[in-house]
């Protein structure tokens, strides 16, 4: 192959390095006005009155709207239509949108907001999981949107014989974990520009990862025929899941454009982006695992509680995801999952890189480390022995096509010198070498540790968000007499390189230069539907659709070339701008000439391709979450140093191996892997959403800590290439999976370094010092356990009777 597998620049790199790329905030139109949104200052309150008269009278104000102007509810999931573009009767968190203004400039719009008077009646705020379980507190939503009072969703599923599994176990470990909420923090703040033409056409340019879902939400809330709405996603300045919901400001900009007859631009500031959130759910977890004396798992019981914030968002899916993928790494013969998501008066949580799976992965991989330590097993060898096999099913009916996890573990073990660095007890041998550390005044107080963890993720959700049987991804390819190829697809490039992949595939298949391919994406008028950039679906789904679209075009071009060259079409192939006969090199035709012949014979040349994932959902409600064409696998080894005097953790090195199937462009796969490691380091050590009385404590880039160049370790990346039958050229996902093993690898490394367990994120110096000071106190020690900081207990929750599901025939079995 000439293009696939090569380390090529992305097709949009050149614009990006000269500053020519246009993001939503860079766009402007003649006569454009500017919108700002008034947001709630109350965490939970009824709206008694909104007085906008003074704002309307301010010179320069073009329109003022409130909830009454856009009252139709919406939400990303059909089952969670609980959001309003502007709150109608009540506000549910500090930052909830209440009113909006369009004015001739942003300053005037801002001044108008100050003139709007909102009268509130305060309700008791619900700020934590225990608050949400307390039925004396006011309900945040009415019954239609919740399973019970402030409980949004309850799930209970059981696969295989759990009781028998625990009965066969030689060792059973129970523990609780907490994974803190954090946010995407894409560098680009959300922006949108809306224009409404007198003939009733609405166009919205928006920084969204999912133009198709925004399209649907606009049609619903604005009561316009979808055929007259056009949503365009220009270049996106990072997403990570933070731009996958339809947002209030998008609807507001459109409504204001419809009212004023002028283009309306809205740019959120960083504080507002924190309120849009949809980030990582804080999840409290309880894990009970049974193993034989050699570590073989016999049963796993997993409970989760998600603090969802004020709205549904993707929350129902997030809840299922906290229980779905525990089974796809190691063989688990019996599994029970109970999950609950509650509403609280905080910005809504949703999907962030890894959507609902990094939290349970953290708990599971730390739990396994504890089990290995208790049984005196090597954590790497131990995991490898129970890794799932290719072409099998899990106990909860998920299909494993290919799994490169054993090789991933081998790679990081070898590169990190894992075995050599560990003594017989499994602890890291070499005491810190003061010469290596420049950052601490107390080199003698440094301890070094090495930790390991694994993970797995989907290559795209197997089911669409709203129920339908249409393609998840569509591609149209056009070829014409210029020799140029155009690829049209609804997918959205958020920096991961999805536009480039389409260009690489077309160039590879036609044997032409990447520069002769134009890619047109993310425009609901021009491009066939693609569901969007989420769930790591794009490479597999658009790639397959693109190959399907190209196939008939290749046949036509080869067919006409064969006539001209008087050889059978089967003997021809596309090679470096030519069609060449494999049997007779002299018989060849320039690509452009071949296209002209084909266009002459067949007329306008185009091909369409569609992709729908294989139908694999198991026989139970909720089985749609977790299914996918293929799983990616990764293993991570992290080396940390911990200062026992300050509690400071420094991640010194990370080795990460990722099975992304075939890497269509290794440079981009490495980039996704490194970016995932970075985000995992941030979540493990510093990133957190914290509130005081419903007020966000850190809604700015300075106060919300995220890693800089100085916090990041050197990352050593290894790509393990399984060739997966489901993916284009064998590809799987790369953008999310490699985040998963990073936080638990760091937690395990901290334990290795200082012998304490930090069973919650972020792993801060305070927690380390607290755990270290507990070393002398005896509570945990008497139980024969390491000192730890983590949740003390797990609240009683009204989980329902589980749905009991018979495992599939090829699932791991109890002996």
């Amino acid at each position, binding site marked *: 192959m000439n293009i696939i597998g090569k380390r090529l*620049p*992305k097709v*949009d*790199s*050149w*614009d*990006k*390095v*000269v*500053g*020519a*790329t*246009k*993001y939503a*905030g*860079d766009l402007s139109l003649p006569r454009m006005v500017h919108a700002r949104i008034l947001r709630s200052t109350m965490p939970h309150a009824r709206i008694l009155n909104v007085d906008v008269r003074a704002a309307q009278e301010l010179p320069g104000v073009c329109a003022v709207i409130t909830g009454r102007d856009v009252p139709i509810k919406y939400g990303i999931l059909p089952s969670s239509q609980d959001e309003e573009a502007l709150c109608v009767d009540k506000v549910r968190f500090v930052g909830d949108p209440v009113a909006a203004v369009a004015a001739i400039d942003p300053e005037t719009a801002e001044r108008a907001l100050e003139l709007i008077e909102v009268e509130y009646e305060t309700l008791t705020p619900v700020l934590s999981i225990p608050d949400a379980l307390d039925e004396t507190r006011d309900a945040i939503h009415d019954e239609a949107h919740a399973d019970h009072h402030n409980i949004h969703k309850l799930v209970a599923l059981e696969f295989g014989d759990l009781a028998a599994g625990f009965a066969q176990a030689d060792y059973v470990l129970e523990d609780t974990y907490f994974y803190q909420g954090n946010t*995407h*923090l*894409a*560098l*680009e*703040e959300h922006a949108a520009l809306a224009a409404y033409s007198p003939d009733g056409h609405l166009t919205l340019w928006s920084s969204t990862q999912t133009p198709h879902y925004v399209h649907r939400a606009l049609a619903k809330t604005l009561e316009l025929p979808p055929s007259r709405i056009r949503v365009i996603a220009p*270049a*996106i*300045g*990072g*997403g*990570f899941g933070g731009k996958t919901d339809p947002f209030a400001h998008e609807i507001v900009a459109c409504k204001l454009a419809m009212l004023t007859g002028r283009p309306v631009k809205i740019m959120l*500031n*960083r504080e507002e982006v924190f309120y849009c959130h949809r980030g990582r759910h804080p999840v409290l977890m309880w894990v009970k695992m049974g193993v034989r004396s050699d570590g073989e798992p016999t049963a796993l019981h997993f409970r989760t509680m998600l603090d969802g914030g004020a709205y549904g968002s993707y929350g129902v899916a997030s809840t299922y995801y906290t229980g779905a993928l525990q089974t796809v790494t190691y063989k688990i013969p019996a599994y029970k999952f109970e999950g609950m998501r509650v509403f609280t008066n905080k910005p809504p949580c949703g999907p962030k890189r890894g959507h609902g799976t990094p939290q349970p992965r953290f708990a599971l991989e730390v739990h396994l480390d504890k089990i290995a330590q208790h049984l005196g097993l090597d954590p790497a060898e131990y995991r490898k022995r129970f890794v799932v096999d290719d072409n099998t099913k899990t106990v909860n009916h998920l299909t494993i096509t290919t799994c490169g996890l054993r090789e991933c573990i081998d790679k990081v073990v070898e590169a990190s010198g894992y075995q050599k660095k560990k003594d017989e007890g499994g602890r890291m041998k070499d005491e810190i070498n003061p010469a290596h550390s420049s950052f601490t005044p107390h080199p003698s107080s440094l301890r070094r540790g090495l930790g390991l963890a694994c993970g797995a993720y989907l290559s795209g959700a197997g089911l669409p968000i709203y129920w339908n049987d249409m393609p998840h991804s569509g591609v149209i390819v056009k070829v014409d007499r210029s020799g140029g190829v155009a690829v049209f697809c609804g997918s959205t490039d*958020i*920096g*991961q*390189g999805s536009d480039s992949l389409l260009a690489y595939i077309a160039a590879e298949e036609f044997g032409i230069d990447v520069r002769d391919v134009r890619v047109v994406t993310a425009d609901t008028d021009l491009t066939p539907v693609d569901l969007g950039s989420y769930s790591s679906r794009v490479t597999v789904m658009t790639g397959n659709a693109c190959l399907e679209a190209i196939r008939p075009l290749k046949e036509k071009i080869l067919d006409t070339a064969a006539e001209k060259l008087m050889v059978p079409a089967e003997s021809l192939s596309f090679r470096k701008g030519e069609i060449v006969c494999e049997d007779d090199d002299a018989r060849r035709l320039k690509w452009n000439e071949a296209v002209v012949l084909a266009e002459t014979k067949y007329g306008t040349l185009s091909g369409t391709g569609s992709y729908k994932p294989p139908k694999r959902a198991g026989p139970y409600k909720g089985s749609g979450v977790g299914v996918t064409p293929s799983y990616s696998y990764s293993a991570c080894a992290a080396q940390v140093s911990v200062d026992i005097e300050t509690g400071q953790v420094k991640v010194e090195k990370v080795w990460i191996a990722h099975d992304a199937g075939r890497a269509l462009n290794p*440079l*981009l796969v*490495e*980039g996704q892997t*490194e*970016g*995932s*490691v*970075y*985000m995992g380091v941030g979540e493990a050590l510093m990133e957190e959403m914290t509130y005081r009385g419903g007020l966000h404590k850190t809604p*700015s*880039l*300075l106060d919300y800590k*995220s890693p*800089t*160049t*100085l916090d*990041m370790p*050197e*990352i050593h*990346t290894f790509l393990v290439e399984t060739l997966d039958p489901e993916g284009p050229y064998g590809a799987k996902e790369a953008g999310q999976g490699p985040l998963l093993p990073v936080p638990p690898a760091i937690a395990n490394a901290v334990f290795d370094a200082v012998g304490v367990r930090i069973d919650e994120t972020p792993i801060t110096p305070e927690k380390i010092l607290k755990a270290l000071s507990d070393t002398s106190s005896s509570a945990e020690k008497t139980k024969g356990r390491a000192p730890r900081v983590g949740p003390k207990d797990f609240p009683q929750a009204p989980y329902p009777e589980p749905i009991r599901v018979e495992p599939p025939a090829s699932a791991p079995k109890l002996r």
Partner: protein
Amino acid sequence: MKQVIRLRVNGQLHEIYTAAHKTLLEVLCEDLDLTGVKHGCELGECGACTVLVDGTPMLACLALPIELQGREITTVEGMARGTELHPLQQSFAELGAAQCGYCTSGMLLSAKALLDREPDPTREEIREALAGNLCRCTGYTKILDAVEKTVNSDQ
């Protein structure tokens, strides 16, 4: 209150009639249409708006144009000579240092200031020079690689 400001940007002198309270970021993006300058916070916290003033990195969201009259301002649009890219731009593109590209112009200018001052920096010095520029996509690895490659190919 509007007034005339004379700004030299990328070697060209502009006379701009604009509100005196506008930041350099706003004037560059809105009045001069140099939208290669980005913003992630408008509070001096992210580095996305980095420009060079007489060769030194400055955060455009905190700078007032009125105070920069007579100084030489460089934005990302001023890095290439015609169609010939600056070596940093070339290696950023080739090594995948720009994912979403939103931090890229700030990164490039901070890196350029470093290389103009210190043509042969260590990886540690590169890290320090870029510590004020946040990137949420790359984990910084490919950015550091790209700056290093530029250093090496210069020799």
